[in-house]
């Protein structure tokens, strides 16, 4: 009974800050073990990336360094993940790779939100020319598969971190525009929006104070999932050779380098691959459980 009452109170109702600190919501969020795993993975990978300079046994190996005598050694007490073709410590490079990858993924997602969300709000709130122009431009970008658009842009711009960020953001922002536009379309006919219009609230205020807050849960969920997919895409670009350029310690690039030494030097590809797998899985699991936790239809289900 208690569950039903609190479910009613929080229908779409309760403010976001309160929502995020809501104990019941946290319980929902950690309902199954996979969720806990996702969050732990996200936190651990983030911590390892931030602390890479302190944690790496060979920070000098992150970029250019050659130790011919130690090249292609298998994992040992000195080199936990073995060494690569230049004799660099793979463990250190995987840690530093996390910095590069997470920086790219977070920058791309935030940039896409910063571009896509305001455009989606405006397109959804106004009908007519503004709506058509924004949505048709977004459609053009959405019509091209993300990987192909990112690949061709990255190839055209040249291999470095800022260019990868641009290429991935250009292919990502329309997704936010789409979902925010759709939500705004339905929200703008809500009575409280009409009521604010009758009170003479300015359009900017209506969009940000009254509509934007309702789209936040969707944006957070899509953003979290998006970080995961962006990491994967960034690694793909690195693997193909249009992403960041050597000697940057990027996971996809490291796997690409390892190809000619496979299958003998299995550690060369395995550890960067595991890093990609675990990080991406972390964000996707966390995104899924955020979606469940914020979905009002699932509120009040004890589990």
């Amino acid at each position, binding site marked *: 009974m208690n569950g039903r009452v609190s479910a009613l109170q929080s229908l779409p109702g309760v403010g976001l800050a309160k929502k995020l600190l809501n104990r019941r919501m946290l319980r929902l969020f950690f309902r199954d073990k996979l969720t806990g795993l996702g969050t732990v993975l996200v936190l651990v990978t983030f911590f390892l990336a931030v602390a890479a300079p302190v944690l790496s046994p060979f920070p000098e190996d992150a970029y250019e360094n050659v130790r011919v005598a130690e090249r292609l050694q298998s994992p040992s007490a000195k080199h936990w993940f073995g060494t690569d073709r230049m004799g660099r410590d793979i463990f250190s490079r995987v840690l530093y790779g996390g910095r590069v990858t997470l920086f790219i993924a977070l920058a791309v997602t935030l940039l896409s939100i910063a571009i896509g969300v305001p455009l989606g709000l405006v397109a959804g709130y106004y009908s007519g020319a503004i709506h058509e122009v924004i949505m048709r431009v977004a459609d053009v970008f959405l019509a091209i598969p993300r990987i192909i658009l990112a690949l061709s842009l990255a190839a055209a711009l040249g291999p470095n971190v800022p260019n990868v960020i641009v290429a991935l953001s250009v292919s990502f922002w329309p997704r936010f525009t789409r979902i925010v536009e759709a939500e705004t379309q339905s929200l703008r006919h*809500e009575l409280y929006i009409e009521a604010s219009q009758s009170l003479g609230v*300015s359009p900017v205020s209506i969009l940000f104070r009254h509509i934007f*807050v309702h789209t936040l849960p969707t944006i957070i969920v899509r953003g979290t999932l998006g970080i995961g997919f962006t990491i994967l895409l960034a690694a793909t670009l690195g693997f193909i050779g249009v992403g960041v350029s050597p000697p940057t310690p990027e996971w996809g690039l490291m796997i690409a380098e390892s190809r000619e030494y496979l299958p003998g030097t299995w550690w060369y590809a395995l550890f960067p691959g595991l890093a990609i797998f675990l990080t991406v899985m972390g964000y996707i699991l966390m995104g899924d459980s955020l979606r469940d936790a914020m979905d009002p239809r699932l509120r009040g289900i004890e589990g």
Partner: protein
Amino acid sequence: MHRTAEESHLLRIKDLALEFHTERGVVQALDGVNLAVAKGEVLGLVGESGCGKTVTGRSVLGLIPCPPGRIVRGEIWLDQENLMTLSQENLRSRVRGSRITLVPQDTLGPLNPVHTVGTQMGDILKYKGRSRNGRPNRPGSDHQEILDLLRAVHLPDPDKILAKYPAELSGGQRQRILIAMAFLPRPELIIADEPTTALDVTVQAQILKIFRDLVARDGCSVLFITHDMGVVATICDRVSVMYAGQIAETAPVRKLFESPRHPYTVKLLDSVPSPEKKEISQIPGTVPTLININKGCRFYDRCPQRLDRCRDHKPGLTQADEDHAVFCHLFG
């Protein structure tokens, strides 16, 4: 300088005609509506569903979506200002929410579910309340003003209420809050769009009492839209009866109830249930669709006393009395 009786009215709607262009044709939603609300007066606007009451209220606020709506002719004056000549931006920043406010019918929908009641009330004063009536502008005065108003609408524990979200309150509490919000910026005119329809009768009676008290306190004018004759008798000074987008009759409440002139008003008052009546009388027929409607009186099809000329000639204004206006050929 002496002002004429007409100019002393705060709100004057003159010959307002409004159309909606739909796929099935042009809906003539309002046809020559004349209304006037004096300062400090509560004018009731009654009529059946779909007769144009809400549309009239919305056009005063300039909130008719165009397209599909189109104002064909008419003037809307608020004091010395013709609202029809103001731009949307001017209406938004200078009229809506400051000089004219609205009490909506629905109680849950108009409050944003993600902000607390306190935030939403505070915003009104922050953006709309300051510039007028020489209010004190010291810190904390906003909060005090909101608390006073919540007490005036008989909400106990106003501090607790302010911290709540709309979904945590009952319909009656939310209606009180919406009324308080309408009075908060000290408007000159309040448009109340069936504010008690969603409530049960006991709460309705309390709310009407509160409303009357607040109107008396602030001396503002009210356009009270309703279809409930009982509500009209309780709260209004004068009443305009509307039928199918036209005004049928305007009179002081007592006069209208005692000696209704227009056949529609007579029938409407007959339809109010009472213990003495064994059967509730109805008005035969239905409200006509307003697409390509006949040029004459719109009540023609259902009128028991219709004349030949009623079909093609729109009835003009007849003063049945000094303060009693009828739009009907029977008196012309």
